[in-house]
């Protein structure tokens, strides 16, 4: 039995425990599912934790609409500013570290010490990506030597709306590791949280709502990954798709649906504890090359 953490207590002395009902996070608001459905979320040990909203395809549609509305302003904010916003998210996470540790412990069945380590790693991961916000364009971009009177340069630009199927096992560190690279590069994200372990994701959404993340830049859906993934994969307003959180046998169908509007598709399973590479930052940007005439 791991040591007790705040928020994970059992009812004492006749007081009735207040169970939280977790909701979706769409366009900066916390609506219930349009379908009115919810599902029971249990801890790794099988204890009933809470009810979470069971999102429908219409919630996915609404989330994409919110993301699409928010993305242009987010992309046109300065890279420095985006970095600051993600850094702010890390600050807020730090302040609620105990709550997240309890949530991760319950969801993943980790010990108190291990879950505190996971939360610390998640905060560090956000800071790492926040730092890249105003630096990766210099690394990924280039000025190119061309045989002609042109100044030729290449810069990365955001793809638009990115649908992310969050890792099923790592409910916080994995989530942060896939979400941060999407948003620091100027995309808006629609995240489908881990199906069995959605609560850290909804708590992260509550953090996002009270930090400086503009409404609609991060949207979090909870529910059946298998139900929501095809809707997002086929949606013509979605520009890219991270299907790392999908079951391996579901991936070919998702890739076929994604081909409808030539979405970028990322399948990348990693060790979340390891130091990340730039691969996720590169995955959801379009490379624009400009030929600027000189000497004319």
């Amino acid at each position: 039995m791991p040591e007790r953490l705040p928020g994970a207590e059992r009812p004492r002395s006749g007081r009735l425990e207040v169970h939280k009902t977790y909701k979706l996070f769409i366009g900066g608001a916390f609506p219930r599912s349009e379908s009115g459905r919810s599902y029971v979320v249990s801890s790794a040990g099988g204890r009933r934790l809470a009810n979470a909203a069971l999102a429908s395809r219409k919630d996915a549609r609404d989330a994409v609409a919110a993301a699409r509305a928010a993305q242009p302003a987010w992309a046109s904010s300065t890279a420095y500013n985006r970095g600051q916003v993600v850094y702010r998210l890390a600050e807020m996470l730090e302040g609620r570290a105990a709550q997240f540790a309890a949530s991760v412990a319950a969801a993943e069945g980790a010990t108190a010490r291990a879950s505190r380590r996971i939360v610390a790693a998640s905060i560090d991961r956000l800071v790492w990506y926040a730092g890249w916000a105003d630096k990766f364009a210099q690394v990924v971009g280039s000025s190119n030597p061309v045989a002609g009177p042109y100044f030729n340069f290449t810069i990365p630009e955001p793809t638009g709306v990115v649908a992310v199927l969050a890792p099923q096992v790592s409910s916080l560190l994995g989530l942060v590791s896939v979400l941060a690279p999407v948003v620091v590069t100027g995309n808006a994200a629609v995240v489908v949280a881990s199906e069995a372990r959605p609560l850290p994701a909804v708590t992260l959404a509550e953090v996002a709502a009270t930090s400086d993340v503009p409404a609609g830049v991060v949207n979090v859906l909870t529910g059946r990954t298998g139900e929501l993934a095809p809707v997002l994969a086929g949606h013509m307003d979605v520009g890219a798709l991270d299907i790392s959180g999908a079951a391996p046998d579901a991936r070919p169908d998702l890739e076929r649906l994604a081909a409808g509007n030539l979405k970028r598709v990322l399948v990348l399973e990693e060790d979340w504890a390891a130091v990340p590479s730039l691969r996720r930052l590169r995955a959801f940007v379009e490379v624009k090359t400009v030929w600027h005439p000189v000497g004319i």
Partner: protein
Amino acid sequence: MRRATVRSVEKTAAGASLASSVNAALAGRSLGGELAGSDVALRRLLSGLPGVDQVGAEARAAALATRSVKRESKLRALELAIAMIDLTTLEGADTPGKVVALCAKARRPDPSDESVPAVAAVCLYPDLVGIAHRQLAGSSVRVAAVATAFPSGRASLAVKLADTREALDAGADEIDMVIDRGAFLSGRYGQVYEEVRAVREACADATLKVILETGELATLDNVARASWLAMLAGADFVKTSTGKVNPASTAPAALVMLSAVRDFHVATGRRVGVKVAGGIRSAKDAIRYLVLVAETAGEQWLNPMSFRIGASSLLNDLLMQRSKQLTGVYAGHDYFTID
């Protein structure tokens, strides 16, 4: 609950006398008209209309808005709504180029799909009618012009008539006129009636739509009275709003107008159309209006000759929803024209 709003005139005692006074009024008009210019006679007629139960109208409109239209019915509703659109641009910044693009879109809303019907009309300021008329030659799309000092209607009758004639000379098939709301609200019904009559005469064969601007009429009773006034004066359509006043078209106001055209049809045998305009941007809103039409006026009104939707961005949403119905995946904004 189903008939909680405006009662059909023929079913009530008050309605029987109303029908006879309407017929007398119309007969009077054809004889040269005691009704003309007579505030007293008009006021007696209009205040004799059955009162509108505002709470009932709102509840009825809200109840009808919950109706679910799915699959084949939805596809049919979407295509019907496309065919009913008056594709509108009424901006100070309208350019000839924008009108040309609008006309191309009106003829063929989805360039990649021939089976999408053309819209009913384009709706423009009078000075741009000539361009639209040339662009739409040989197509089924009609040209509508807003005239009579749109949107406020604050000009002399001579100016309003000149505005109308200019639009007609440039090739307009339909005229969207505004009533003088100031005169209507201060009880000068005769003046409003005379203006609509004068524009009606100037229009000759052109379709006349009379904009009531329900957002400025304060009560649903006034909406019903203004509808009757316009219909008595010879309107082919009654239209909710200019789109320049908030609130624009609302479901309860449309419900009252649809009840009025139904009752007018019962009383006189003449079918007057309804046009809703302003703030209708989503396919869902458009389908709600179609349900309202079918349930209030009747399905005989469900065609572009009797019901129109004035809109601009609505068309893209209808096309996107249609694409969703046909392909099964949600459509993207990048695949439809920016307008």
